[in-house]
C-alpha cells in the first residue's frame, strides 16, 4: 500500500529564505555588478513632447576628457535594431485581435523626431558616471516643436495633429466589434427589452509602476568567444535574450542573460527597453563593459506607465437587479511608441469586462490610440483593474437605480456553475463567488455597518461602504494565448546532488514573489528533505534551459506546475534506483518521507542521500551488476503547459469616512477575502495581498500621472507623485476561501495581482457611497483632498 507523504511545509507561514539578504543589504542587484574597465552610459532625454530634431551636436561632449564615445540617433541608424513590439504577427495584425496594427519604428536613440518627454536623443559613454553626465550638458540640439496629442478621444478625430504621419491617423488599431460578430445584435435586443438602462464614463488614469530598483543594465563582451553577457533588472531573462538576439543582432546562444536580484517590477520590467539594447550594443562595439543605471526621474518618464484607459459603458438591467447586457466602447492610451506588449493590455479588459457576473450579452469596441506620452504596458493587474471597475461600478449603479442593496445585486448576478462561460468568451476554471462575498460581509458585520452608516448620515457625516467582488485572470498560459514566438509554458529541473542536497532550477524569474521559499517548501514536502537542503536557482540563461519569466501571476500556477512534474519524476527514478539497491522491483517499494522502503519489509530501506550517491557513483556491486534500465544521475526536467488560465476571485470591502472640512479620506476598515486556490505559504500570500491593496488604494486615492497641455510630465519625481506609505492606508484584514483550480497540479491560481484588482474598485465604490447623499454620482480618480473638497463644496466655502 502506497503511503501518502504528509504535507509538512506546504500551507505553513514560513519566513522567506530571501529576506535576510535583502534586509541586511546583501542582495546583489544589477548596479552592484562592477567590472574592470567598465564604462558608464548617460542618456540625454527629450524635454519636449513632440518635436522634429533639426540638429544634435555631440562634438563638444566627445572632447570632454573621460568621454569614450557620444552618439546621436543618426550615428546609430542602421547599426542596431529598435525597441521591439511583440504583439504584431507576420501579417502586420494584432496577434490576438486579428486587426491591422500600426507599429511605428522605435529607434533606441531618436533620429528625426522625439515623440514624448523622456525619449532618448543622444547618448554618452564615459569612464565615470559624473563625466558622462557633465558631457550631457555639452550636447547642443535644435528642435522644431509640433502640435501635441494627449487626449485619446480627441486624437482619433479627423483633423487631429498626427504623431506618426505614415499611418494617416493616431489610431494604432481599432477593433470595431467583439467578442463575436453576433454579439452586437444580441446586446441591442437586450437593451431594447430592458426595464432600465444606465451609462457612465470611466477614466483609469495612468500610473507609474515605481519599482524600488530603477531599471539597470550591464553588458560585457568577450571578443575571443564573440560572447555577450548581459545583467539586467528584468522579469524575463530568457525572452529578453531571444528578443535581444534578434534586434542587435547577435547569435542567441552567445548571449548569457542574467537577472540578478531584481528590486520589484510590477510588470514594468516585462519588456526590452532601449537601454537594454543600447548597453549590449555599446559593450560589443567598444569592447568594454558598459553600465546604465536609471535615475528615479528617468524611471518616471521612460519606464512604461500602467492603465491609461477611458471607458464608455452602457448597461441594461431589470428592476429586480438582473444585469442583462453590457456595451463597452473604450480607448487605450498607448503613448507615442510601442514597448513589448503595449497594444495588448486593453485586451485583458475586454475579456474580463463582465467580471464574476452573468449578463446574457456583451459587446465591445476598442481603439488603441497614439498620444505624445510614454508607452503604457503591463502594470500589476494589467487590464483587469480597468475591467473590474466596469463590472463593479455597474453593480453599484444597478443597486442605486433599483434601490436594492449592492451586496444583493452582486449575489443575484454571480456566475454559479463551473467551469463558467461568461459572454466574453472565456471559460472560468473554478469559483464560489458567494462564499467569498458572504465571508467578507460577515467579517465586517455588514447589516450592522449599514445601520452605523444610517446613523452617521443622520449626523451629517460622510461614511462610505464599498464592495468589490472581482474575478481575475492569472497563471498565463496556455501557450496559444501568447504573442508570436512566445510560449506560456514553464520549465523546472530538479537535481538531487550526490550529497543529497537538492537544486531546483526554474524558468520563472522571481523579483519579490518569494519562490526561493515556496518552491523549497513544495520540494521539501514532496521529496521529504529539510527545506534548508533545497536551493532554488533562477534568472540565468546559462543555468536554466529556457523559461518564460514572472508576470501575470504565473509563478506558482505554471512554474509550480512544472516543479511538481519534475519532483514526481525524480521520485519515480529514485524508486527505480532504490529497487536495484534493495534487490527488488520498483513496484515493490514506496517513497516515504525521503526514504524508499521495501513494501514487504519496511525495515529494508535506503535514504534519498544514499540513492543519490549511488545514482552518481553508479558503481553498484562491481562488474556486471550495473542496471541497464536506468541512466546515471538523479536529475529531471519537465515543462508544464497549463490547459487553461486560472481565475482567482474574492470580495474586498472598504469602510471609510470623508472629512467634510478638508476632503481627506480616512480608511476605517479594509477587509479582503481572496481565493487563490491552494495556498503554499500564507505569509507570502498575505504579503502579496497587502502590497496589491496598497497599490490599488493608491490609484483610487492619490496616485496618477499628470501631463500638462504641452505634454510635460508634471508628476515626474517623488515630491509630486505620491506612492503609498503605510501611514496613508490604514489596517488591512486578510482572509481567504480556498477553491483549487483543476488546471495545474498544485491547484494554485496566483495571487500577485488580486489585491490591486479588488482594492481599487472597493475604495472607489466606498468613496462614491460616502458622497451619495450629496447627489454625487461620479468623480474621476484619484481622489485627492482638494478634488473631494471641491465636489462637496461646488460653490466654494
Amino acid at each position: 500500500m502506497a503511503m501518502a507523504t504528509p504535507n509538512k511545509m506546504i500551507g505553513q507561514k514560513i519566513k522567506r529564505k530571501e529576506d535576510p539578504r535583502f534586509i541586511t543589504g546583501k542582495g546583489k542587484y544589477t548596479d552592484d555588478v562592477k567590472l574592470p574597465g567598465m564604462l558608464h552610459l548617460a542618456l540625454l532625454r527629450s524635454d519636449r513632447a513632440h518635436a522634429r530634431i533639426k540638429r544634435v551636436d555631440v562634438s563638444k561632449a566627445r572632447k570632454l576628457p573621460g568621454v569614450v564615445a557620444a552618439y546621436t540617433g543618426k550615428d546609430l541608424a542602421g547599426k542596431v535594431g529598435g525597441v521591439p513590439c511583440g504583439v504584431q504577427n507576420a501579417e502586420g495584425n494584432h496577434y490576438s485581435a486579428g486587426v491591422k496594427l500600426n507599429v511605428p519604428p522605435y529607434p533606441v536613440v531618436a533620429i528625426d523626431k522625439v515623440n514624448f518627454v523622456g525619449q532618448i536623443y543622444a547618448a554618452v559613454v564615459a569612464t565615470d558616471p559624473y563625466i558622462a553626465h557633465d558631457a550631457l550638458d555639452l550636447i547642443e540640439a535644435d528642435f522644431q516643436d509640433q502640435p501635441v496629442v494627449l487626449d485619446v478621444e480627441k486624437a482619433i478625430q479627423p483633423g487631429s495633429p498626427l504623431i506618426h504621419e505614415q499611418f494617416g491617423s493616431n489610431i494604432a488599431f481599432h477593433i470595431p466589434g467583439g467578442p463575436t460578430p453576433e454579439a452586437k445584435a444580441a446586446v441591442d435586443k437586450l437593451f431594447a427589452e430592458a426595464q432600465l438602462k444606465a451609462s457612465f464614463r470611466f477614466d483609469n488614469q495612468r500610473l507609474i509602476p515605481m519599482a524600488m530598483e530603477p531599471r539597470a543594465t550591464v553588458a560585457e563582451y568577450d571578443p575571443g568567444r564573440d560572447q555577450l553577457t548581459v545583467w539586467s533588472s528584468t522579469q524575463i531573462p530568457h525572452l529578453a535574450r531571444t528578443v535581444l538576439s534578434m534586434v542587435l543582432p547577435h547569435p542567441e546562444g552567445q548571449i548569457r542573460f542574467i537577472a540578478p536580484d531584481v528590486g520589484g517590477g510590477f510588470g514594468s520590467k516585462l519588456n526590452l527597453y532601449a537601454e537594454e539594447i543600447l548597453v549590449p550594443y555599446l559593450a560589443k562595439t567598444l569592447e568594454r563593459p558598459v553600465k546604465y543605471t536609471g535615475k528615479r526621474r528617468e524611471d518616471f518618464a521612460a519606464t512604461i506607465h500602467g492603465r491609461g484607459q477611458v471607458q464608455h459603458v452602457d448597461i441594461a438591467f431589470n428592476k429586480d437587479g438582473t444585469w442583462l447586457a453590457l456595451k463597452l466602447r473604450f480607448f487605450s492610451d498607448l503613448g507615442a511608441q510601442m514597448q513589448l506588449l503595449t497594444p495588448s493590455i486593453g485586451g485583458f479588459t475586454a475579456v474580463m469586462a463582465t467580471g464574476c457576473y452573468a449578463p446574457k450579452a456583451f459587446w465591445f469596441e476598442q481603439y488603441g490610440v497614439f498620444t505624445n506620452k510614454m508607452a503604457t504596458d503591463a502594470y500589476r493587474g494589467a487590464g483587469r483593474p480597468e475591467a473590474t471597475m466596469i463590472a463593479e461600478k455597474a453593480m453599484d449603479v444597478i443597486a442605486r437605480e433599483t434601490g436594492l442593496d449592492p451586496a444583493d445585486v452582486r449575489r443575484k448576478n454571480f456566475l454559479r456553475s463551473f467551469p463558467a462561460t461568461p459572454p466574453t468568451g472565456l471559460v472560468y476554471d473554478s469559483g464560489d463567488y458567494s462564499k467569498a462575498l458572504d465571508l467578507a460581509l460577515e467579517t465586517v458585520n455588514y447589516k450592522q455597518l449599514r445601520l452605523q452608516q444610517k446613523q452617521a448620515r443622520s449626523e451629517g457625516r460622510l461614511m462610505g461602504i464599498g464592495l468589490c467582488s472581482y474575478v481575475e485572470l492569472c497563471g498565463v498560459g496556455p501557450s496559444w494565448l501568447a504573442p508570436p514566438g512566445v510560449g506560456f509554458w514553464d520549465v523546472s529541473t530538479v537535481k538531487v546532488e550526490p550529497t543529497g542536497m537538492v537544486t531546483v532550477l526554474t524558468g520563472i524569474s522571481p523579483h519579490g514573489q518569494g519562490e526561493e521559499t515556496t518552491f523549497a517548501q513544495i520540494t521539501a514536502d514532496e521529496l521529504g528533505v529539510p527545506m534548508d537542503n533545497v536551493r532554488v536557482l533562477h534568472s540565468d540563461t546559462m543555468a536554466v534551459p529556457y523559461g518564460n519569466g514572472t508576470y501575470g501571476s504565473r509563478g506558482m500556477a505554471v512554474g509550480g506546475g512544472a516543479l511538481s512534474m519534475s519532483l514526481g519524476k525524480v521520485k519515480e527514478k529514485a524508486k527505480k534506483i532504490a529497487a536495484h539497491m534493495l534487490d527488488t522491483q520498483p513496484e515493490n517499494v514506496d517513497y516515504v518521507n525521503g526514504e524508499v522502503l521495501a513494501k514487504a519489509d519496511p525495515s529494508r530501506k535506503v535514504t534519498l542521500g544514499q540513492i543519490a550517491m549511488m545514482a552518481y557513483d553508479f558503481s553498484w556491486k562491481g562488474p556486471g551488476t550495473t542496471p541497464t534500465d536506468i541512466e546515471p544521475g538523479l536529475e529531471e526536467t519537465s515543462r508544464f503547459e497549463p490547459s487553461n488560465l486560472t481565475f482567482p476571485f474574492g470580495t474586498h470591502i472598504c469602510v471609510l469616512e470623508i472629512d467634510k472640512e478638508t476632503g481627506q479620506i480616512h480608511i476605517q476598515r479594509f477587509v479582503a477575502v481572496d481565493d487563490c486556490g491552494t495556498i503554499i505559504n500564507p505569509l507570502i500570500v498575505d504579503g502579496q495581498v497587502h502590497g496589491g491593496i496598497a497599490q490599488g488604494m493608491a490609484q483610487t486615492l492619490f496616485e496618477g500621472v499628470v501631463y500638462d497641455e504641452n505634454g510635460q510630465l508634471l508628476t515626474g519625481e517623488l515630491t509630486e507623485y505620491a506612492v503609498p506609505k503605510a501611514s496613508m492606508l490604514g489596517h488591512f484584514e486578510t482572509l481567504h476561501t480556498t477553491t483549487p483550480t483543476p488546471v495545474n497540479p498544485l491547484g494554485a491560481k496566483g495571487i500577485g495581482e488580486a489585491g490591486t484588482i479588488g482594492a481599487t474598485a472597493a475604495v472607489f465604490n466606498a468613496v462614491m457611497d460616502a458622497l451619495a447623499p450629496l447627489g454625487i454620482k461620479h468623480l474621476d480618480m484619484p481622489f485627492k483632498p482638494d478634488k473631494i473638497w471641491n465636489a462637496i463644496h461646488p460653490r466654494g466655502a
Partner: protein
Amino acid sequence: MFPEKFEYHVPGSLQEATQLLGRYGDEAKVITGGMSLIPLMKFRLAAPQHLVDLRKLSDLVGVKEAGGKLVIGARTTYDELSRNKTVADKCRLLAQAAAAVGDVQVRNRGTLGGALVHADPAADLPAAALALDAELTLQGKKSRTVKVADFIVDSLSTSIAPDEVLVSISVPLSGKHTAYAKLAQQASGFALVGVAVALEMDGKTCKSARIGVTGVAAKAFRATSVEKALAGKALDAANIKAAAEKIGADIKHPMEDPLNGSVAYRTQMAKVYTARAIQQALAG
C-alpha cells in the same frame, strides 16, 4: 543623480568656517543635513563650487536653557528636537513641528538651522519659529542677532550674508498651550498648510496669540490678523472660527501649485487648520 563638480571643505572651527565662506562668497554653500541641498545639486538645479560642511562644529549641536530661554544649536536635528526632554517640557511646539517633518531618514539628518536658512515656503519649522518669535544668532566677521520674521525674506531667501553661519536659535520658554497642525502634501510630506500656534491664556481668555503659517504663501508668515482677533477673547468655538476666517488677509503672495490644490482650496485649508491648531493648543 550626479551633481556637478564641487570642492568639499570641513572646517574645524566656526572662525575657519566663516573665513572659508568669506573667501568663496556666492560660490560657497553651507551644508549640514543636506536634505534639501543634496537633491538640488543632484538635479543640477544648484551647483555650488564649494561646500562647507559644519559637521565638526559640535558647539552647534544641542539644547541649553539660559536666561529664561532655550538656546538651540543650529545643527540640532529634527529627530533630536522631537525627542529632547528639555524641548518637550519647555517648548513643546518645536518638538511638535519637528516630529511632523518628512520621514525618519529626513528627521535623522535634517537640522533646525538648515530649515530656517533654506526657507522653503512649505517647511514646518519656520512656522514654529515664527509662532515662538525665535531669535537667530549669526556669525560672520561679527556676530549679530535677528528675529526670524525679519530673517526670512522670501521663498528660499533669507537675510543671511554669504560669509555668515547660523549658530543658534533662541526661543522663549513657552506654556503648554501650543500646537502644530498640518495638512501634508501626499507625495512630498511638505505642508500644504501648516499652522503653529502659541497661546497665552488667562483662564478661558486669550491674553495673546502668536501664529506661524507655512505652505500657503511664498514664505512662512505670522497670521497677525488672526492673532489680533483672538487677543482678549474667550476662546469658544465661535470665536475661534471667526478669528481663523481672518487669515485670508494675512496671505500676501499665495502659493501657486495647482497640482496640489487651488489657491482657494489652500486658503480654505489655512482657515480650517488654524482653527484646528488653536483647538489643539487649548486642549494642551
